[in-house]
């Protein structure tokens, strides 16, 4: 089966600052693919490019055999993106927010209702969805945003640090939601610097690193190694992905 996403030689810079120095990876149908690495490695830049928010520098990105650079509208129809620090419209009620977002993807009122019903099920927020988003806790907001990202059953869900800033219980719930709902055919491209979380969630991972020279110049994000968590641990004789990362830096 063809890849959902194929990235080849992707480069990106902000002025003189190199963010990505040519990365290659692919996301296969129904898999959870994770980009891991420290802050500033280029994870968010990569996800923003795939989400059509930033323009790619050099390289090619093929999404369902369509060129992302030439057909961003096609890509937006099939993906959903959850930014790391995303928010929802505070003056809207939770349910209204879900309807507002579903309306962009649904072709019929029935489909819109189905999307919202699915989101309600994912959030498990019940009657709280009838209150304004501005009154929600961080965990509740994150759940509604995650539900928004998954309710349309996108071909590719792009999740940037999905558990960022959440407490242990909320983070666990979010991970379980991702695991449960991707089984229905959605592929997931996610990023995290929490390597233990990635080990639990991902089918395959890529280790991203942006080396910093003593002069302060960054060489640009590059993939040090990639594979399933088990393959990587075996290749680097490591107990977990944190040790894999340290080993690949050497």
């Amino acid at each position, binding site marked *: 089966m063809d890849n959902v996403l194929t990235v080849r030689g992707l480069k990106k810079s*902000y*002025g003189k600052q190199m*963010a990505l120095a040519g990365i290659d990876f692919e996301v296969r149908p129904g898999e959870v693919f994770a980009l891991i690495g420290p802050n500033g490695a280029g994870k*968010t*830049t990569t996800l*923003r490019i795939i*989400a*059509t*928010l*930033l*323009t790619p520098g050099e390289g090619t990105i093929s999404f369902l055999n369509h060129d992302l650079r030439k057909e961003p*509208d096609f890509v*937006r*129809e099939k*993906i*959903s*993106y*959850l*930014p790391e*620090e*995303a*928010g*929802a*419209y*505070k*003056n*809207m009620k939770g349910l209204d927010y879900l309807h*507002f*977002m579903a*309306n*962009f*993807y649904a072709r019929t009122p029935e489909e819109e209702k189905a999307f919202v019903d699915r989101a309600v099920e994912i959030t498990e927020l019940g009657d709280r969805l009838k209150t304004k988003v501005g009154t929600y806790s961080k965990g509740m907001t994150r759940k509604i*945003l995650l539900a*928004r990202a998954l309710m349309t059953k996108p071909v590719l869900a792009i999740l940037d640090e999905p558990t960022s800033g959440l407490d242990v219980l909320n983070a666990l719930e979010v991970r379980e939601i991702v695991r449960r709902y991707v089984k229905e055919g959605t592929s997931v491209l996610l990023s995290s610097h929490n390597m233990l979380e990635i080990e639990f969630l991902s089918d395959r991972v890529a280790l991203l690193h942006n080396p910093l020279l003593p002069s302060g110049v960054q060489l640009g994000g590059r993939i040090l190694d990639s594979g399933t968590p088990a393959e990587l641990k075996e290749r680097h004789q490591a107990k977990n992905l944190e040790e894999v990362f340290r080993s690949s830096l050497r």
Partner: protein
Amino acid sequence: MKRFLNLLKKEIKELVTAQLIISLAFTIILFNFIGQVSRKEVQKAIGVQTISALDMDGSPASLALLKGLESARFKILNQAGKTKEQALEAAKAGDSKLLLVIPAGFGDSLKGLKPSEIETYSFMRTFSLIGARGQIVVGGVISALNNVLSNNFIRERLPDVDPGSLKNPIRSKDFVVVRDRMAEGSAAQVANLISSQSLLIPVVLMMIVIYSSQMVISAIAMEKQNKTLETLLTVPIRRTSIITAKMLAAGLVGLISAGIYMFGFKSFVGGIGEEAARAGAQAGGGGGAAMMRQLGLYFNTSGYIVLGVALFLAILVALAIAMILGVLAEDFRSAQNMIMPLMFMVMIPYFISLFADINTVPLPVKIFILAIPFSHPFLVSQNLYLGNYGLIFGGLAYMLVVFVVLVVFAARVFSSDKILTMKLRFGKKKGATA
């Protein structure tokens, strides 16, 4: 279209907050209140006013003076039999705005062709201009009496001479020529009438620009601050639709807000204007409108349409600029400062049009004024009067071009990395981040 309407609905809902409704309601109530108070004050000023008079002469001439004042809608409290000091005290203690003292020998002096003096004591209980009107009217009455008395003297001494011709041997009959039309009247009168007619244009434009631009800038800044912009930019809707929805929502809400504001403003200005106009009509004025009509200095339906189009284009240009400034704003607070350059752009042509004539300013200044898109609505009203259609349609075309260029630029910014990386914070270093 369904997606666009979905977004437009959300934008309008975001803008029409309880805060906005309360502030608009408060504006109307406040203006209405001030209007009512002003109306009462004006009514008081132009209505029957109470003054005190101490006639120490009792001659036919002094009685004629008091009768003249009564016919000029003054209620006279006669302080007869009192000394000047007693009359002053009595007048001060009462409602009188003024004490008029006619000294003994007033009538005899007039008969003997000697200048006669009367004394007026104004009690200033307020410093408003309306409050001082009493003395102005008394002055007018005295001047009319002077006229009558001097005419009588001339008729007695020189029965064959017209007193008017003797007092004013040279008379001026003023005519104003505008293009191929001519009417009797003074140029100052025409200029005053035109400036009072065009007063509303800058006020309307300023109000709509302030309301709408603030809304657009804040809408984008709030999307950034609340971290909703990134999500919105990845949903399947064209970037131009996002821009249009935000501009249209702000334009509609801005237009309605400005309309409500203007309604309140009208009731405030009407409080003074209507009563003053009524007083003017009673005094025998009202020739200005006929003169303006004769000169062709009035708007017909097509004139109003052209002016409306000019205002609409100016609003669109303001919204497009606001959209770009909104992208630059990092958060809601910096968005508040972003409105300032736009405000200056609207105010510069307004003030220049108040104090200078665009046709006589040096060429670089003229180019500068014409380059500001917001100058054209001001110029359109003047050029409509003067029939300079080339300048009018040139101005409209220029605004349209500026608007298209700005929208294309805004759409490019929205489609590029700049929407996420451009930041401008006042007092802080600007730079790109990701």
